[in-house]
C-alpha cells in the first residue's frame, strides 16, 4: 500500500522559502508570462497561488489551522498545472508536494473529491452514477473492435462519455492505418483525478484493476488519446504504485512515427490553416512531450503552426486538471477562457490539443467569451486526412 513519508513531506514543504516567484513571474527569457492561472483568474489573495497554498498546508499539518473544509479550499483551488514547479528555484517540487498534502489530509471532508472517487470505484467513470454510455461510441463505428489484441486503445472516460467523436476518430484512425486494436468491454477509469485529489489508496486499488484489465486484453502496447491517462498510466502507476506497465503510448507519438516512417501519408487540411497548439500539462510539463504534437501538426500539408505567447514548459494551463473542473467549474472555465484569448491573439483558427479533458474545458472557455475559434483534438484533425 502506498505510504506517504510525512517527515519527508514536511521537509519538502519547508523548502518553500515564500519567495513568491510562483505568483505571476513574467520572464521573457524563459518564456513565462505569468505563472498561476488561479491567481490570475480570482481575487488574487495569497491563498490563490502556491506560496499561500503551502503556508496553509504546513499550518494544517502542524495543527496551527483547524482542519475544516473551508480551510482546505485553497488546497483544492489549484489545477496542479505545475507551472509553479517549473519556475520555483527551491529544492523541491511544490505541485507534487501539494498533491501529497491532499492525500495526507484526505480525512477532511470534501464532497466533490469523494463523489468523484465513489463514482470511479463503482461505475468506472467520474461523470455519472451508472455504467451506461461509456462505450456507446463503439456502436457507431461501423465495425466492432475486439476486446483482445496486441494493441489496446484505452480511450478514457472523457473521450468515451463527453467527446465520443474523438474516441471514434481515434478508432477510425487506427483502422485506416491498418492497425489491429482492441477496446475493453468495461474499461475502468485510470483514476487520475483520485490521485490528484488525494484518494491515493483508492487510486492504487483502482490502478491494479486497470492493470488487470489491460493484462486480460493481452495488450503489449496501450494507446491513449488523453494526456491525463497517459501521465497516470505511464508515470504514476509505476512511480507511485510500483506497477509494471506495458508500453503506454499517446496517439500523437504513435502517429508521428507512422508519418515519419512513411507508413501513412496525410492529405492537406486546407490552404494556410493557422493552428496553435495547447500543451496539456500532463503531457508537457509532466512528460516533456512538447515537440511530437507540433511535429505531427507541421506534417499536415496546408497547416501553419503558430505559437501562443506561453508555450511548452511555460504554457498556461486550460484550468481543467487537478480536480478543479469539478471543484470550481466557474473558475476552471474562466481559466480556459483566458487560454482561449491567448490563442486568439495568435490569429489561429484552431486550437489543437492532445487531450479530451483540455478540449472539453477549452470549449467551455471559448463559449464563455463567445469565441469562434475551433477547439480540436489532433486526432480529429487528421482522421480524414489519411491518404
Amino acid at each position, binding site marked *: 500500500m502506498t505510504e506517504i513519508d510525512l517527515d519527508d513531506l514536511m521537509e519538502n514543504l*519547508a*523548502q518553500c*522559502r*515564500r*519567495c*513568491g*516567484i510562483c*505568483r*505571476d*513571474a*513574467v*520572464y*521573457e*527569457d*524563459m518564456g*513565462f*508570462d505569468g505563472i498561476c492561472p488561479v491567481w490570475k483568474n480570482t*481575487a*488574487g*489573495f*495569497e*491563498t490563490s497561488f502556491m*506560496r*499561500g497554498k503551502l*503556508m*496553509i498546508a504546513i*499550518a494544517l499539518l502542524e495543527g*496551527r*489551522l*483547524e482542519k475544516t473544509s*473551508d*480551510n482546505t*479550499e*485553497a488546497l483544492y483551488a489549484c489545477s496542479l498545472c505545475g507551472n509553479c514547479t517549473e*519556475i520555483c*528555484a*527551491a*529544492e523541491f517540487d511544490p505541485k507534487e508536494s501539494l498533491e501529497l498534502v491532499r492525500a495526507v489530509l484526505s480525512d477532511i471532508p470534501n464532497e466533490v473529491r469523494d463523489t468523484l472517487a465513489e463514482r470511479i470505484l463503482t461505475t468506472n467513470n467520474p461523470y455519472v452514477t451508472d455504467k451506461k454510455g461509456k462505450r456507446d461510441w463503439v456502436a457507431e463505428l461501423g465495425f466492432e473492435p475486439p476486446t483482445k489484441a496486441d494493441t489496446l486503445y484505452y480511450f478514457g472516460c472523457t473521450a468515451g462519455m463527453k467527446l465520443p467523436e474523438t474516441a471514434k476518430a481515434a478508432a477510425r484512425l487506427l483502422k485506416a492505418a491498418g492497425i489491429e486494436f482492441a477496446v475493453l468491454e468495461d474499461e475502468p477509469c485510470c483514476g487520475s483525478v483520485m490521485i490528484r485529489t488525494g484518494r491515493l489508496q483508492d487510486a492504487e486499488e483502482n490502478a491494479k484493476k486497470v492493470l488487470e484489465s489491460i493484462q486480460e486484453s493481452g495488450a503489449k502496447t496501450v494507446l491513449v488519446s488523453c494526456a491525463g491517462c497517459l501521465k497516470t498510466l505511464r508515470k504514476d502507476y509505476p512511480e507511485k504504485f510500483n506497477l509494471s506497465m506495458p508500453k503506454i503510448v499517446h496517439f500523437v507519438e504513435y502517429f508521428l512515427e507512422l508519418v515519419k516512417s512513411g507508413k501513412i501519408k496525410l492529405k492537406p487540411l486546407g490552404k494556410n490553416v493557422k493552428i496553435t497548439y495547447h500543451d496539456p500539462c500532463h503531457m508537457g510539463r509532466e512528460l516533456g512531450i512538447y515537440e511530437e504534437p507540433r511535429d505531427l501538426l507541421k506534417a499536415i500539408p496546408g497547416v501553419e503552426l503558430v505559437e501562443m505567447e506561453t508555450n511548452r514548459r511555460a504554457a498556461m494551463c486550460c484550468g481543467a486538471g487537478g480536480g478543479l473542473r469539478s471543484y470550481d467549474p466557474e473558475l476552471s472555465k474562466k481559466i480556459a477562457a483566458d487560454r482561449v484569448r491567448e490563442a486568439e491573439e495568435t490569429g489561429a483558427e484552431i486550437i489543437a490539443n492532445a487531450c479530451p479533458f483540455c478540449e472539453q474545458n477549452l470549449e467551455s472557455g471559448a463559449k464563455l467569451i463567445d469565441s469562434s475559434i475551433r477547439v480540436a483534438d489532433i486526432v480529429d484533425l487528421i482522421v480524414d486526412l489519411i491518404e
Partner: protein
Amino acid sequence: MNTKVVSELVKIVGEEYVSTRVDVLLTYSETASMAKDPVTPGAVARPGSAEEVSQILQLCNKNKILVTPRSGGSSLQGEAIPKPDGLVVDLLRIKGITLHKELRSVTVGSGITFGELDKFLNQHDLWVPVAPESALICSVAGNVAVNGAGPGSSAYGCIAEMVLGVEVVLPNGEIIQTGSEANPNAPGPFLRYAFGPDLTGLFIGSLGSLGIITKVSLKTYKRMHQFHYETYGFDTAEQSEKFLIEVKNNDVLPMFASVYEGPVLNFFMDMVGEEYGIPEHEWPHRTVSMTIGRLREDRMKSDAKKAKEICEQLGGHVIGISELPQGEWEGRFWTFVRTCYIHGWHWRTLYHHQTPTNSHRSVEEITAAMDEHGFLGHTAGFLSGHSTMNMYPHFYFDPLDKEEDHMIRAAHDELAITLYKTGAVPFKLAEYWKGRMEGMEDYMKLLSAIKETLDPNGILNPGVLGGI
C-alpha cells in the same frame, strides 16, 4: 477586525477584494523574511486605484487601524510583517505602464514587477538597467519603498537613482505627486528635483511608513547589447577592493561586479558550478566577477582592455572564466533566486552597504561571528554605486532547532552593531537597526519628527523603519 470597518472596506474596494478569512490572514502573516515571527492581521484589502488607497487610509486613520502596505511580499528583513489585527493593503492590483518615449521615462502602477516592465520596454529596445535579483517577484514600487539594488547597480547605483517621481498616498489619504509631474501641465516625468527639496527621496527607502506609493516614474535607457564577461583574480582583499575603485575611476562601466572570497566561491561552485556550466577552478583569495556593458562595441572593448590593465597593474590576473559573470548577468532575474535556495538551508540576512575599500571588514567581522557562535554562513558583495558595495551575508540555521534559531538572531543583532561600527550603513533601514546605531540619535529624531508630521496617528507600518 471591527466588522463596521470591514464593511466600510468592502464599500471601498468591493466584497471580492476584502478578506478576513482565517486562511487568507494566515498567508499574509509572513513574507519571504525569516527575520521576524509571523503576525496575523485582522483583514486584507486589495485596492485597485490610488483613490481606493486614499479612502482606505482615511478610514484607517479615523479608526486608528494599523496598516501594512504590501506588494510582492518578498522582503527579507521583516519589513512587511503586519501588526496584530491590523490591515494589510496588498498593492498588486494597481497596474499600468505608460512610456514617455520623448522624456526617456516610464511610469508604472504599484502592481507592476520588474519582469513585466522589462518585457514591455524590450519591445522598444529600452530598459531600466537596475533591477533586484527578486525582479520577477517584487513590484517596482515595493523595491523603491526599500531602495533596492541589484544587477545594474554596479554602474547606476540603487533603484533610487532611476526614480523621477512617485505618486504617493499620504497616511491622511492625500494623494501627492512628486517630481516634474507635480506640475499638472508638465508633459510627464522628466526631472526629479523639480520643486525644492527632494520629496521623492522621502518615500524612497521609507519601508511603507511615510506613504503608499501607487505609481513610480523611472528613467529609461536604450537597451545595451554589448557585454564583456570576465573574472579577475587577486591575492589580497586590498587588491580586489582597489580594482573596483579604479574601475569606477577610469569610467569603465561595470553593470555587475561581485567580489567573492576564495572559499565562498568554491562553496558556491560546489553547489551550482555544474548546473551553471562553470568550469572547475581553484579560485584565488579574491575573485571579481564582472560584466562590463556598453551601448557601443568599441567602448565595451576599450573598457575590457582597461579593466585588464588595471587588474594587472594591481598585481592581479585575468582568470579567463567568463561563464560566471555571464551566468550572473544573463540569468539575473532567476539565477540568484536559485542560488539562494539551491543548498536547502534556511538563512537570515544582514544586508548592508560598505565602501569597496572597507568590504573586507564586513568579511572579517562576519567570519569572526561565525567562529564565535559556531554557525555556518557566508558573505559576498557587489558594487552598488559610485563607491558602495552591497554586502549580503547569509547565516544558515535550522528553523526547527529553536536554540540555533535563537543563537542566530542574537548573533545577527550583535553583528548589526559591529558592522555599523566598521562604518557600514543599512541596506534597508529595517527594524533591527533600532538602537544599534550609536551617534545617530539626532538623525533618528528628525526622521521620527517627519513620521509624526505625516502620520500623527502612527498608522502606517509603525516600528518598521529603524523602529520609528
